[in-house]
């Protein structure tokens, strides 16, 4: 190294030897996030039990029309992980930003991908447990009638959770406080919830809204659940739905990585 020759300071410092992702650093980050959760048993309990309680509630709300419970319940099995992981991730990463641990971490040889993938891995694991519990209760105790394989329901739920994690990571960059972060939930999630076809078929909406719903990932998450509900085998639409949800999750995760800055004003 030409140590003596002073070089002008570069404004950005990406490129060069540091890799964006190292598997062992990613798993260390995921392990750390999960370890933080284990010190917070109440959050774990809320994450696991609330979806089960809500789906049970839904079952008896639609006591007189089991078909409505089937379709709405299956959709909700995909929407719960999305919403809870969105909330948990946006608050967790906001805390990283405001407490200074993010700045501290990015001054270390940690790739941005390590942090993002670590969070996705940790909350993805939580989502698998959450969705497995809610799906099992729905099918075996509440009589949710699914024609396709419950494993496919789980797969969609996991992808939904990753999408929620990705969206949470992304919007936390635009929130300066927990108040703002929580407000992003109605701002980002509710429109998708209204347009995803849960309340009324998307074809019946105003054409403009239908067009908008065509580009919102939650529409595909709900449709994917619907495909499993009505078809014994994997359909072409199901494959498309899964690809769209996974692709959006990946895209938003990359956008989230862009919002992480090693140098801040």
């Amino acid at each position, binding site marked *: 190294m030409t140590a003596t020759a002073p070089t002008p*300071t570069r404004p950005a410092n990406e490129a060069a030897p540091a890799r964006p992702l190292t598997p062992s650093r990613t798993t260390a980050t995921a392990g*750390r996030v999960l370890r933080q959760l284990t010190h917070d048993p109440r959050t774990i309990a809320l994450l696991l039990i609330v979806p089960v309680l809500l789906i049970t509630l839904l079952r008896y709300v639609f006591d007189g029309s089991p078909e409505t419970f089937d379709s709405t319940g299956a959709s909700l099995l995909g929407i719960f992980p999305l919403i809870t992981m969105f909330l948990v991730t946006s608050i967790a990463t906001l805390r990283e930003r405001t407490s200074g641990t993010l700045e501290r971490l990015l001054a270390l040889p940690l790739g941005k991908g390590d942090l993002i993938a670590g969070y996705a891995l940790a909350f993805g694991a939580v989502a698998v447990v959450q969705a497995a519990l809610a799906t099992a209760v729905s099918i075996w105790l509440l009589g949710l009638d699914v024609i396709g394989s419950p494993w496919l329901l789980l797969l969609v739920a996991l992808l939904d959770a990753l999408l929620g994690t990705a969206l949470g990571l992304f919007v936390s960059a635009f929130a300066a406080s927990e108040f703002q972060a929580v407000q992003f939930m109605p701002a980002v999630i509710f429109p998708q919830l209204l347009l995803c076809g849960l309340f009324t078929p998307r074809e019946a909406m105003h054409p403009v809204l239908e067009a908008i719903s065509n580009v919102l990932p939650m529409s595909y998450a709900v449709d994917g659940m619907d495909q499993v509900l009505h078809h014994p085998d994997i359909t072409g639409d199901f494959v498309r739905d899964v690809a769209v949800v996974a692709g959006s999750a990946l895209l938003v995760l990359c956008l989230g990585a862009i919002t992480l800055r090693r*140098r801040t*004003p």
Partner: protein
Amino acid sequence: MMNYEPGPPSAGPTGPPDASPPPAPPSPPAIEARDLTVVRGTRTVLRALDFTVRPGSITGLLGPSGCGKTTLMRAVVGTQAKVTGTLDVLGHPAGDPALRHRIGYVTQAPSVYTDLTVRQNLDYFAAVLHPGRAHRAARRDAVTRAIGDVDLTSHADALAGALSGGQRSRVLLAVALLGTPALLVLDEPTVGLDPVLRRDLWDLFHRLAADRGTTLLISSHVMDEAERCHRLLLMRDGRILADDTPDALRRRTGTETVEDAFLQLVEATSPTPPPDQEASR
């Protein structure tokens, strides 16, 4: 224990009044800044700073709150945006990825995971520095040693959130010590600590400089800590008022303490000092 050793033999006792940079050191400087300027928002926080920090020395960065100490440290660590001029750290431009292994950084806010224990915090940061299963044993040793260095062994399994502010900043110091860094940048590491602990930490800083050859850049707004540094950078309003040893500074200004020297330098440079932020508290 070596309390305040007067640093490497050097620098004329009574430098010229405009504090010229010290004579060329034998080894390349640990930090070299030329025309270093930082803008935050619309405000110029650091104005064309020139200074060098010698390897293996303890440099105190002193000045009132808001004078730019933290910004300067963030620039050295490479987390500050909008840095212009030249800033080389350990032979690389500041912020170079190669430096991330070699700089330990203690921020002013105790940025640790409050919902993890002290050891879990260190385990994670150690895994980021030296990832992989193969280094597991080495990591465990490094973590145990770092916890011992900052005297938190009895609290190793306590949640960081349950610790006092001073203890939490020591966790951060332990994190900074993990990779045996060549440069330690410590932003007010002793604020709010009891005098005994403060003395112990300064002893640790001197041991690190003497035994491991670590370069330390330590900020403080407590002027009496200045006496413990090899060299001082006195800052005010984004400028460096003086760059000298504590002894030379007192001699040059004919004062008893560094605090008085600071006051005199302020009055010498600006005939009408703004009344709101006189000196350090």
